[in-house]
């Protein structure tokens, strides 16, 4: 866990990509879940954030 945080702080690719993937996954879950309309409403922002983040952090060093 500390390695993960450390990686985030030092702008390493691995952990940041992980974070972005989780955001994308969360966004897609929010988009398609049958429970809360508000989650559906905000899903797009979350997916968009995750996707843009992924595009950026994939240029971080390994």
């Amino acid at each position, binding site marked *: 866990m500390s390695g993960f945080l450390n990686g985030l702080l030092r702008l390493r690719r691995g952990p940041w990509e992980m974070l972005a993937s989780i955001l994308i996954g969360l966004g897609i879950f929010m988009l*398609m879940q049958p429970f809360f309309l508000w989650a559906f409403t*905000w899903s797009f922002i979350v997916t968009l954030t995750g996707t843009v983040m992924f595009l950026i952090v994939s240029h971080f060093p390994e």
Partner: protein
Amino acid sequence: MSDTALDRVARATPPRVARRIRGFSDRAIAWIFVAPTIVLLLAINIFPLIWTIYLSFTNYRANRPNAVVEWVGFRNYQRILGDPEIWQTMQATAHFLFWTLFFQVLFGFALAWLINAKFRGSNLWTTIIVLPMMLSPAVVGNFWTFLYQPQIGIFNYAVAFVTGADPSSFSMIGDVRLAPWSIVIVDTWMWTPFVMLICLAGLRSIPESIYEAAECDRASKWRQFWTITVPMVLPFLMLAVLFRGIENFKMFDLVVQLTGGGPGSTTELTSINLKREAFEKWRTGYASAYAVILFVTVFGLASIYVKALNTVKNR
């Protein structure tokens, strides 16, 4: 192995062109080779994409050339993301996605594992199993409506034969409860071989030596399965799941031919809904916003997919 045809191409290249090509540096050749691809993709993919993003902020209608086009800001997005009916199509998509992936992984992995036992004739039967996934989904989907007809289709008779129920007593496409499963069945029939093939590659990539080592450590077969087979195949399975996930998220042809979204809107997947908005209601601006939302979702999934692709590739 003669290369006469290529020789002819080389000879047919006009000397002036050939001389010019010869004169190119490596870097120039690289760019000349890549440029047509990039230009074509820019023209047919990126330019339209930017156009879509622009349209998504307007109330443009492609079937009303004389109407005034207004800038509506984020209104289209607000409408879509607050619309319970679009939310419902997302849930229909989710149901379809979840169950097709579930069955395809289950059957696909099991089949791959069985085929990996290398019984006699396994190659032939593998090829036969693979057939459905290469066929045109629209044509196949259309024909499945025939197979599903309660009085004259064989599906109901097959089920009746197994369960003893009356074949005309249920209708796969017509019944609200059964229709979502009717599309799951056809998609599973079509795409299980895809997951199977990838799993098979995963199984075959496991070096024998690992099992031999485990055998020396007296690990049980059951333990070997969970500690060696499953983890080693997992990246491959991830790849298959992501790819099928993306494909089924944008599923259109098969389902539109099978159920057309009905009964009611039970099987109206997102792409079918989008097609209605864009090409039947012609609310182009609104549909563009809808398209952008799907774009971003698929783009996000695709980035994870490419990462998985590279992981598998580097194995």
